[in-house]
């Protein structure tokens, strides 16, 4: 047994795809540790995970891990369509990366350019024991990866679904449940250490029913009370599971009513505000928060102006096709099928991809117009 040389150890980080979010996480999701994302449903945790599956394939200078990823899902339906959508826009954003990789793999007989989805392995599990068995089988996959990129990212979405139905609320079952937590976490951590993996696990929240005394009000992490959608929530699976993960991030969503236009009757502007908080992490001592925006191309920080501009273009095309009322400067709030929202404003431009338009037309939407400027951050 020899001690490791600390000066040679520098864990890699996997970028989230947005430089501002990466900055608040000191580079991204670290390797060799388990990061947990806790959120209410509809907050964007699956979107964030899918984005990570793609950014992990980026080469190291761009912040990725240059690796394939493994996506273990427990909730159905599987977001494969969304993954393909994201992969498509990802490929076009990083076209130079994928063009060069396909030309370098000319020795292999791939005639089509490489698809990011080729490097993502998806597997469903239904119970906690199945998950543990899958982890045991993963060892062989990690040692001999089937593609040229090694597996360096494992995403489990979500862990709560495995445990919330099988166990009763009596001490015996809870004890069995918590020993399963440690077994699974121990296996994941030893694999993460051995192969240098980044592990991301998503978790759900439960409502807090009683007062803040007792176990339900136990403060874990920097934020005392977690609020999402106006309710006080608490990460599920309890304090035992909190010990199993290395870092915990909390995504909250709140409906905000923008401005004060209720008087005119027609204008009610609602906006979903999503925020990322760091609850606890050994390398991030200060609690940070960052506002998130989701678009159909990616998840990004609301401060990221480049991405905001890209969203704006697609929104304006939609408006022009629908022949809605034009003004020289309008702010649009668009709600698209699976509850993604964007905020952006700019002038009308017609040079957009047809695909984005198709997507918009397939879903339902409401348009709310707000004349004049609004603050970008909302």
């Amino acid at each position, binding site marked *: *047994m020899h*001690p*490791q*040389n*600390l*000066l040679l*150890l*520098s*864990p890699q980080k996997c970028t989230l795809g947005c430089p501002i979010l990466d900055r608040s996480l*000191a580079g991204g999701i*670290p390797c*060799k*540790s*388990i990061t947990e994302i806790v959120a209410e449903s509809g907050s964007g945790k699956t979107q964030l995970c899918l984005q990570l599956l793609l950014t992990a394939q980026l080469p190291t200078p761009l912040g990725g891990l240059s690796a394939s990823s493994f996506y273990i899902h427990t909730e159905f339906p599987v977001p494969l369509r969304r993954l393909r959508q994201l992969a498509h826009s990802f490929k076009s954003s990083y076209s130079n990366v994928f063009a060069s990789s396909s030309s370098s793999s000319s020795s292999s007989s791939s005639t089509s350019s490489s698809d990011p989805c080729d490097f993502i392995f998806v597997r469903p599990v239904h119970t906690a024991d199945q998950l543990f068995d899958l982890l045991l089988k993963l060892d062989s996959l990690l040692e001999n990866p089937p593609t040229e990129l090694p597996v360096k990212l494992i995403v489990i979405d979500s862990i709560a679904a495995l445990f919330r139905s099988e166990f009763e609320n009596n*001490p015996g079952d*809870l004890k*069995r449940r*918590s*020993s*399963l937590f*440690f*077994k699974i976490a*121990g296996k994941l*951590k*030893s694999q*993460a*250490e*051995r192969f240098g993996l980044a592990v991301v696990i998503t978790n759900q929240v439960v409502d807090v029913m009683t007062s803040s005394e*007792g*176990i339900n009000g*136990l*403060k*874990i*992490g*920097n934020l*005392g009370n977690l609020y999402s959608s106006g309710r006080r929530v608490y990460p599920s699976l*309890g*304090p*035992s599971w*909190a*010990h199993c*993960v*290395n870092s*915990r991030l909390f995504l909250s969503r709140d409906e905000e009513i923008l401005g004060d236009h209720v008087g005119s009757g027609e204008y009610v502007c609602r906006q979903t505000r999503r925020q990322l908080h760091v*609850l*606890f992490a*050994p*390398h991030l*001592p*200060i609690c940070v928060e960052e506002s998130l925006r989701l678009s159909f191309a990616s998840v990004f920080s609301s401060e990221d102006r480049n991405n905001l501009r890209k969203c704006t273009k697609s929104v304006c095309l939609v408006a022009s096709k629908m022949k809605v009322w034009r003004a020289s400067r309008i702010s649009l709030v668009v709600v698209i099928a699976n509850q993604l929202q964007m905020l952006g404003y700019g002038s009308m431009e017609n040079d957009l991809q047809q695909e984005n338009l198709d997507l918009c037309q397939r879903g339902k939407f409401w348009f709310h117009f707000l004349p004049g400027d609004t603050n970008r951050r909302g």
Partner: protein
Amino acid sequence: MEINTLPISASTRGKLISTGYTSLSSLSSISPSRLAQDLRIQESEAVEILKVASVNCGVGNSDGTRAIVAGAQTAWDMLHEEEFARRITTSCEEFDQILGGGISLKEVTEFGGVPGIGKTQMGIQLAVNVQIPVDYGGLGGKAIYIDTEGSFMVERALQIAEACVEDLLDNGPARKDFRASQPNLSAKNLLRDIFYFRVCSYTEQIALVNYLEKFISEHKEVKAIIVDSVTFHFRQDFQDMALRTRLLSNMALKLMQLAKKFNLAVVLMNQVTTKYCDGSFRLTLALGDSWSHTCTNRVILYWEGNERYAYMDKSPSLPSASAPYAVTSKGIRSSASNCKRIKLMQA
């Protein structure tokens, strides 16, 4: 038959064995006059035998005549030793105060708390602080950090080490020649002197603790062993809970022996668990009641409102008290709140 290893004459050895002194431990707590009586030799010869035995044991004074009983110490000597013994500072004044000046050597201190309270931060801070040079009031030793959870982040350790070096250079003696004579004080050197081990299962953990004795005898400058956390691998499913208790108490015993033998501090981090008693759930430290007996000092870290507090739960010599502290980008520091009072709790 350890008597055989002593460099004494064969006849003396024969006398010892025939009288019943077959092991070194039997010689360790006997007075010279008694030994002389038993062996029917001169008292000066008995003193010589005891001196040789105590030197071979590696325990006790080299001058066998000073102690009344070779191998043991008087309480007065122990008091003197304790007063002059240095302690490892936690970089937070109030925290040091409730610890009686800092983490003491030759003892096992346990820190327990919920996730996110700062146990790993405390571990890294102590691993850095044990290396503070003697001229600045520290121990100038090295540290062994045993990481069982993977929470140790090198970038954070570098941050804490840099802040420590900055603080030392700011607050240390201002003589220019003094500062020039400390060229080795840099964050990288501080990191170089932390021996970092990562263990991934409980068997590895136990094997490592057994190996530590050999390791420390080769690296005598080690003055602190930090295990973060000692519970993680033991909370998995153990079919036989008695086995778990045995393994844990063995490990604890080994760590205590290391602390006493090599005069170093052992710091263990523990987790919390919910205990079901009297129909309700209570929060306690993990690993059960039997583990509670094994550590010398126990400090519980908890939240009160938005502030972190440390509570001295168990100590042989210090009163129960709590103190606020903060985790900043520089590491563990004093809390910035205005009312920095130490609250003495009535036990």
